[in-house]
């Protein structure tokens, strides 16, 4: 007897111990990866990689606002001096030209390999003549004079050509020697972290370093001159890493706050009901066990637990606390072993069925492509099963002798009296009302069918509109706008994609000339393919021939060949020098520009050529870009719109989630059919749930909310939680046990209050995904209980009437 009672707790303790170890050792992630696809297509993979760790994800944009222009520029300079020494950054740039010294040396050294104008014709006598006279003309302008000292070594002006080549991409405005916004009211800068964008800890520390550099720069400004002008200085940060860190902070804050608030609310509720501390402690056991095992299951199943999943943990409190409420209240009639046993016979089957229907609902999230939903599914399924099992097998064994909670029969009676009023309404009237509400909801949903679902991935982003606007502004000023249109060239190695990028550039040039696109960037502008470099190198004639050509070229020019001997030397050096490799870019600011356009995945290389919109301001017609690529026979290149791609990706998930949810509903129906063995009873159980779902969806649509994938999960949760209520009413109606009705009602209302508290809290968080869930489930749970009570009492009323 002792053993039969003890095996439950013993097994439970062992499970809890194991789960506790797993939870303690689990890895917790808080980036946005929960909302990125798990099984992507190559294009999706590209998107995800770029979002997660691509060079673009490592970029932090900073702006200095307030104060006066001089103070801003000085702060920018001081900040940069400090950040340049920081190894956390692979690149920092604020537009200061001293940083470009390395670049110029690099470009000058490799000018005959990097300049697009290097061809065999250019080094013919005629070509040299044209190029040199052009350069001499240039000397007449002040800017050309900058290159005067270079003339003997670079008479064809290749350095200027390369600088022109690179400056085709828009560059920010410079004032006081540093980048400023178009209106000049803020200084701008860029920092690229060495750590990947998904490494939130590293991003956080990089952000701290930038803030510290700003603070120390402001502190170092001469305060005596104009203290007011420095005091008003502000640092603004943006970029993927900044967003990730902000999102993490937001999620962490929400999780902590929601857990504490949810805990306090539920504890208060339970204390109010039980009026017993032991009962409270025992009552929380199923929840705590469920949450612990749920997290452990996620940690084991996914290798890491996402922060948002923990946030959803509150939802589990909402449902699993119900089990102990049912247990305590429903078994409280006889405070004895017999009471517990009769509970196990009378009530447990209903709770078990309710739990299984919930599991059916949550299990439909498991096959989802969204890691966040998968985690939520696994967490809920395992948590609910454990909570139910603990209620069934552990709680009865732990009940102390003489255990008692407050009698809630008066509460139940009061609710029953309330319900009686509804019961006076005729069956036909209720049916008509229900059908009317259902028809109305369907009509509203039909009316909103086009805009019902939000297919924009940004809807899930925890980043506020203001933050997104700031980012867009800074990017526009820096000329680093988030371009949605790009051509992606894929290949097995760097050389192949650089060649592809060059062929793409040739194919796109007619579109630039025709004004279809404004221009494009290419990694080959920074680093030409080895093939192209080789072609340029071999286009340099040997020393004797070049000298002969140059002699002829300088005839009629105001320059003598003996002035240009350094040119002959440099050309000869280049002929025997190695080609430029990607590693040679290191140490120049060109490296960041180059790396931003290259994505290396395991065995796949991608070159990205972002397209600029035409000057007309119209959108880029991607079909013409695709046609140009087709015409140029650049088969390894693909024109795509990132926004369309990511939204299509999300729309795919949404469709998938809707399908899975309907499958879950079917499975739930099948389960009920097997358990209840009566289609009519199944219909009665499902009717209030569907009605609640439709009403909530219609109310959301009416209030202008576009449904996201999280709303869908919320609707699923209404069914999962509401099924418990409907099943209890079904049991009540079919057992003919009128005496327990008050207790049933009391336990349901209290359980419902717990659920509404848990989910209601979510609606007040700052994280959109949690808000969506809370705003759907909290009203849905109330409606489900209400509808279940009204609709399911028909038989009960009839039974009562026949007894009367």
């Amino acid at each position, binding site marked *: 007897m002792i053993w039969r009672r003890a095996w439950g707790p013993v097994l439970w303790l062992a499970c809890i111990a194991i789960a506790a170890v797993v939870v303690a050792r689990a890895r917790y992630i808080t980036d946005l990866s929960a909302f990125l696809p798990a099984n992507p297509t190559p294009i999706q993979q590209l998107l995800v990689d770029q979002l997660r760790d691509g060079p673009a994800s490592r970029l932090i944009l900073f702006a200095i606002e307030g104060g006066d222009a001089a103070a801003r520029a000085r702060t920018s300079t001081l900040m940069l001096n400090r950040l340049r020494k920081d190894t956390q950054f692979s690149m920092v740039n604020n537009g200061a*030209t001293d940083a470009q010294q390395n670049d110029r040396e690099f470009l000058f050294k490799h000018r005959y390999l990097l300049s697009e104008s290097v061809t065999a014709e250019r080094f013919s006598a005629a070509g040299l003549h044209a190029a040199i006279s052009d350069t*001499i*003309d240039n*000397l*007449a*302008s*002040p*800017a050309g*004079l*900058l290159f*005067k000292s270079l*003339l*003997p070594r670079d008479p064809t002006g290749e350095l200027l050509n390369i600088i*022109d080549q690179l*400056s085709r991409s828009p560059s920010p405005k*410079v*004032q*006081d*020697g540093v980048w400023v916004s178009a209106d000049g009211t803020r200084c701008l800068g860029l920092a690229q972290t060495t750590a990947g964008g998904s490494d939130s800890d590293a991003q956080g520390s990089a952000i701290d370093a930038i803030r510290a550099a700003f603070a120390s720069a402001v502190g170092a400004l001469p305060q005596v001159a104009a203290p007011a002008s420095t005091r008003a200085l502000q640092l603004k940060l943006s970029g993927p890493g900044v967003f990730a860190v902000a999102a993490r902070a937001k999620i962490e804050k929400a999780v902590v706050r929601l857990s504490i608030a949810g805990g306090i609310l539920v504890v208060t509720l339970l204390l109010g009901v039980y009026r017993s501390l032991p009962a409270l402690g025992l009552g929380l056991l199923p929840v705590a066990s469920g949450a612990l095992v749920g997290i452990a299951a996620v940690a084991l199943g996914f290798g890491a637990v996402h922060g948002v999943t923990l946030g959803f943990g509150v939802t589990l409190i909402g449902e699993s606390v119900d089990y102990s409420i049912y247990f305590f209240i429903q078994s409280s009639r006889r405070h004895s072993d017999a009471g517990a046993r009769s509970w196990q016979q009378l009530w447990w089957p209903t709770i078990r069925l309710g739990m299984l229907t919930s599991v059916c609902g949550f299990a439909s999230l498991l096959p989802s492509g969204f890691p966040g939903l998968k985690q939520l599914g696994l967490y809920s399924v395992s948590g609910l099963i454990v909570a139910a099992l603990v209620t069934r097998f552990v709680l009865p064994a732990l009940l102390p002798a003489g255990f008692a909670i407050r009698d809630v029969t008066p509460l139940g009676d009061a609710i029953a009296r309330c319900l009686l009023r509804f019961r006076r309404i005729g069956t036909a009237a209720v049916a008509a009302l229900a059908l009317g509400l259902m028809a109305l909801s369907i009509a509203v949903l039909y009316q909103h069918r086009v805009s019902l679902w939000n297919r924009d991935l940004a809807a899930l982003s925890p980043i506020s509109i203001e933050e997104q606007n700031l980012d867009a502004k800074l990017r526009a000023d820096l000329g680093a706008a988030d371009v949605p249109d790009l051509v992606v060239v894929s290949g097995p190695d760097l050389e192949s994609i650089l060649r592809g990028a060059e062929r793409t550039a040739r194919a796109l040039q007619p579109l630039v000339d025709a004004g279809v696109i404004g221009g494009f960037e290419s990694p080959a502008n920074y680093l030409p393919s080895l093939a192209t470099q080789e072609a340029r190198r071999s286009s340099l004639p040997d020393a004797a021939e070049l000298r002969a050509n140059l002699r002829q070229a300088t005839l009629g020019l*105001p*320059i*003598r060949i003996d*002035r240009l001997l350094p040119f002959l030397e440099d050309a000869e050096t280049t002929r025997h020098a190695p080609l430029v490799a990607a590693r040679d870019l290191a140490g120049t600011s060109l490296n960041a520009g180059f790396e931003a356009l290259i994505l290396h995945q395991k065995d796949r290389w991608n070159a990205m050529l972002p397209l600029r919109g035409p000057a007309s301001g119209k959108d880029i017609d991607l079909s013409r870009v695709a046609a140009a690529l087709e015409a140029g026979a650049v088969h390894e290149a693909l024109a795509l719109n990132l926004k369309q791609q990511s939204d299509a990706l999300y729309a795919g998930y949404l469709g998938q989630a809707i399908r899975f949810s309907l499958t879950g509903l079917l499975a739930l129906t099948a389960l009920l059919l097997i358990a209840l063995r009566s289609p009519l009873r199944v219909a009665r159980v499902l009717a209030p749930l569907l009605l609640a779902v439709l009403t909530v969806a219609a109310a959301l649509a009416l209030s202008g909310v576009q449904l996201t994938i999280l709303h869908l999960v919320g609707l699923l949760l209404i069914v999962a939680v509401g099924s418990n209520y409907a099943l209890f009413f079904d049991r009540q109606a079919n057992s003919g046990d009128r005496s327990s009705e008050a207790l049933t009602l009391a336990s349901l209302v209290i359980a419902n209050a717990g659920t509404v508290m848990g989910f209601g809290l979510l609606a007040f968080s700052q994280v959109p995904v949690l808000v969506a869930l809370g705003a759907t489930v909290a009203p849905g749970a109330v409606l489900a209980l209400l509808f279940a009570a009204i609709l399911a009492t028909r038989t009960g009323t009839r039974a009562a009437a026949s007894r009367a």
Partner: protein
Amino acid sequence: MRASYLKLLVALIALSLCASAAGASELDEVMGLLATRQHGRVEFVDQQFLHILDHPIESSGELRYDAPDRLEKRTLKPHAETLVLAGGVLTIERARGRRVVDLRAYPQIQPFVESIRATLAGDRTSLERLFHLEFAGSLGRWTLTLVPLDSNVKRAVAQVRIDGMRDQLLKVEIRQPDGDRSLMTLRPAASP
């Protein structure tokens, strides 16, 4: 007008006190005259004497000025080029494209354009921020010699010599430390 008399009076007193101050006051007068001009349009012929080249290269065109800081140099020969200095930014437009140069980023270019711009504007403060000023001659015929203060700039420009008559610039000669020089000769534009 009263201000001019006042200046003259001050100048006379200054002259009587210290002979060497004469140049300074004449400079103020020239600057004052220049500062009152809002617009200007002259033709120029620019000659570059570069030791690397066997003979000077010549260009010509039109120079326009709008107070206080817009200077436009339109070269017509031998090749069309428009150079606009506005708000410290130099924009160079040629058949092959457009280039924008921030002067603060290239201090070595600054004297080439700022010497002319600030002189045209009668902006003595700006001139003195960049150059050591030497004034010779009189209002009717003067020579302003500008020597860069910054050692970096000195490596690009040794001195700028501007010859003028009242509020008109006649010649701008820029000497580079390597002996190269440019000479811009100005005369009033033929047609409005």
